[in-house]
């Protein structure tokens, strides 16, 4: 696991989290995409040092190959986060259609509880 990639994962996580805590749904989608990248990169770096592509017929010795298992896991992660990103985008579009903007509102029930408490005091 190389130090540079660890720092890149950290940076992606930080920026992703920053975006996810936004109120604009489109930024939240961007944030999710970045967090997905961070997770995939963490998986790949966990596979150890770089190596030759794990293609059995082209390897000189199999010991030089990069670990194929994290790659297989990462592949799944990439595709799933891709699906999630598109779905969130569609949701943001729908939200915009219904309410005119794509901002995340406060939870109405929670707000009601809070207002009820304030009114009591």
């Amino acid at each position, binding site marked *: 696991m190389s130090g*540079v990639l660890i720092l890149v994962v950290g940076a*992606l996580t930080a920026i992703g989290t920053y975006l996810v805590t936004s109120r604009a749904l489109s930024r939240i989608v961007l944030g999710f995409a970045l967090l997905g990248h961070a997770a995939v990169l963490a998986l790949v770096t966990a596979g150890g040092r770089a190596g030759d592509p794990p293609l059995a017929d082209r390897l000189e010795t199999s010991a030089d190959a990069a*670990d194929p298992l994290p790659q*297989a896991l990462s592949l799944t992660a990439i595709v799933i986060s891709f699906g999630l990103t598109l779905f969130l985008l569609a949701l943001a579009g729908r939200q915009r259609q219904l309410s005119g903007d794509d901002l995340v509102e406060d939870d109405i029930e929670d707000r009601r509880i*809070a207002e009820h408490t304030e009114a009591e005091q």
Partner: protein
Amino acid sequence: MLLWVVLGAHLAGIGLIMFAGGTQRRLDARAVFVVAALPALFATGASIRGLSQDTATTSRVAWVEGLDLVLALRLDALSALLGLIVAGIGVLVFVYSAGYFTESSAGLARFAATLSGFSASMIGLVWSDSIWTLFVFWELTSITSFLLVGHKHVDEAVQRSARRALLITASGGLALLAGLLLIADGDTGIALRDLEPTTGTAATVAAALVLIAAATKSAQIPFHVWLPGAMAAPTPVSAYLHSATMVKAGVIAVALFGPIFKDTDVWQPLGIAFGLGSMIWGAIGALRHVDAKLILAWGTISQLGLMIAVLATGSAKATFAGISILVAHAIFKAALFMVVGEIDVRTGTRDVRKLGGLRTSMPVAFWVCVVSGASMAGIPPLLGFPAKEAALEAALGVDGWQRVVLLVGVVGGSVLTVAYTTRFVLTVFGPSDSGEVTDVAPRRLPITAVTTLLAAASIVGFVALDWVGDGVRSAAVLLNPGSEVYSLIRWPGLKTAFVLSMVIIAAGIPLGWFLSRRTDDIPRPLGADGADRLVDEVLSGARRITGRVQHGSLPVYLMTAVVVASAASVPFIAAIDVDALRWTDGAVVPALGVLIVAGAIGTVRIPGRLGAALGLGSVGFGMAGVFVAQGAPDLALTQLLVETVVVVAFVIGLGRLSANFPPVGYVWRTLRMVVATGLGAAVSIGLAGAASKPSGSAPVSDFVDEAAATGGGNNVVNVILTDVRALDTFGEVVVLVAVAVGIVALAQSGRAGAGDDTDLDPEGADPEGTPARSVDEVAS
């Protein structure tokens, strides 16, 4: 096994009631009580069988292996006696309910099912053989009691009463749990009958906690305020829970835990203080009220006080006396409550000032009251008399300060008991204030039958006193082996206790007669206002905290979670070994890293949504480059395809959103930055910590060799996806299909709702056709 079958029968009965009660229309609605009575009858039979056996029947079911948590039941002389009271009175209460309610009463199935649930919980409580089983059933009785008190839940006063009862008894349950945890920590074991006597600080605290739990359950001062409020429940509930059984749980707890705690400094003084204080204060309360049911409720507080004081004393004689009173009280108090319920449904009032002429119009009820009241007052020849004698003997039998305190308390309390009993009978059955005769509805057969039976039991109990005494003795012996020598005495002769009894009766009756003519309304029991305020404060405090914590802002919820998660990385700091870390594999990775981070920053910094999408694209393509450098061409290929689609989708999708992000306040933005940076640092720390301790090398060669040999493919990653994790990959395809369907549905519902397709056109939903294909490509 039989014991669990009995409890299971209750559950089956409840299921049948809930199912049949909701659907059947042809039978009388009160048929549910017949169904509910059957499991109780079964439990009665099991208890009688337990009484007639010399050996105990036990049944243990492991709950959590390794934690010493077992659900254990035991049927021996003590639990069979208590079980007989609980189940036997349960049967009578179900019969009584059939007379108390009319066919048109609302929610009968719910009522019968809950009452049956309570019955099962209470039987479980008295049969339990481990402290944890006891605790579980203890809490179940609190909950079912809450549901029963709140049966007429549309009434706000009823809601308050039910909440008050639940808050007080449930807090007591927590005290019990804490106390049990303290003793279970030691070497005393968890089987109830095998607990060893303990002393020391932990035991003292535990003793106080268990006593407090008992006091909340048995409505002892200052926790008694819930019991008068619980009279809002239908009378069958009051007769069952609030006289004969549930409130006895506290008394039973004092009896069961007495043997282990009696040597602690706190047990005797605190128990006697709770008990005698409640006995006197409850009796005074009973003398003040004009609602017949409230008079009995306060009388119950008083009687429970007597039992707790006597049992907390802990001598063999006292243990024997305590169990005797418990048995006698269950019989006479259930009868009295039932008569009050009968008066309520036949005249429409329980106000003793309005009741007149009942002695001639309700003769059976009158005689039931006279007999049961006399038993309560300790007048021979009824079962209450020898029990009261035993209590006086016990008070005389102890030494030191307890002797004086107990004698004064028991004698004083008993005088008041005789007084309020006299006043109760005189005011309920005497003339009304206005002199009018109350109209009385026709007699209801089930009520008459059950009350007569209970009154007869008080007489038969005295006639067959040896038999009752044997049952009580074999139960008491299990708590205190010294009880072996005692028995209930029908005619003691002119001994001190007997003289005291006569003095008590002689003093109490005139006092009661005098007070029966003073029936000013005393509106609220002292302390109830304070308790209600406390309950209100607790509830509004809970709402305030909820309002503060659950304010509705999703970003703040998320940030709270992120901060907590970041804190989890702290232990990893120590694990980082800088020397063990490699900085990079080749020079191209740092360059790509810069591209990725720059793109990520771009998503935030570049104004406008389009620029943000391009920044995201730069991150994705940088990632693809890293994959190539790491030796993962499949990943790189997939990443390129995916990223292209995502960027296109963003451009199409975001084009329909407003071009710029809304402005954000400076403070809020800074806070978000700090929290986000914290999580980023935490993730880096965690990864670096993990990387510092490599756990051997991966079996790469095995994968490569096996892929070609058994997988039949040269691309090892693809073999893993399609052979080793085929089912996972299939699930992944299903996810993508679901996403595609979802996006199409969102787009189409938008069009149907808006009537035109200006906002989200078919292209918006189109790109997800590509991912399924790209997976196929990758996987093949």
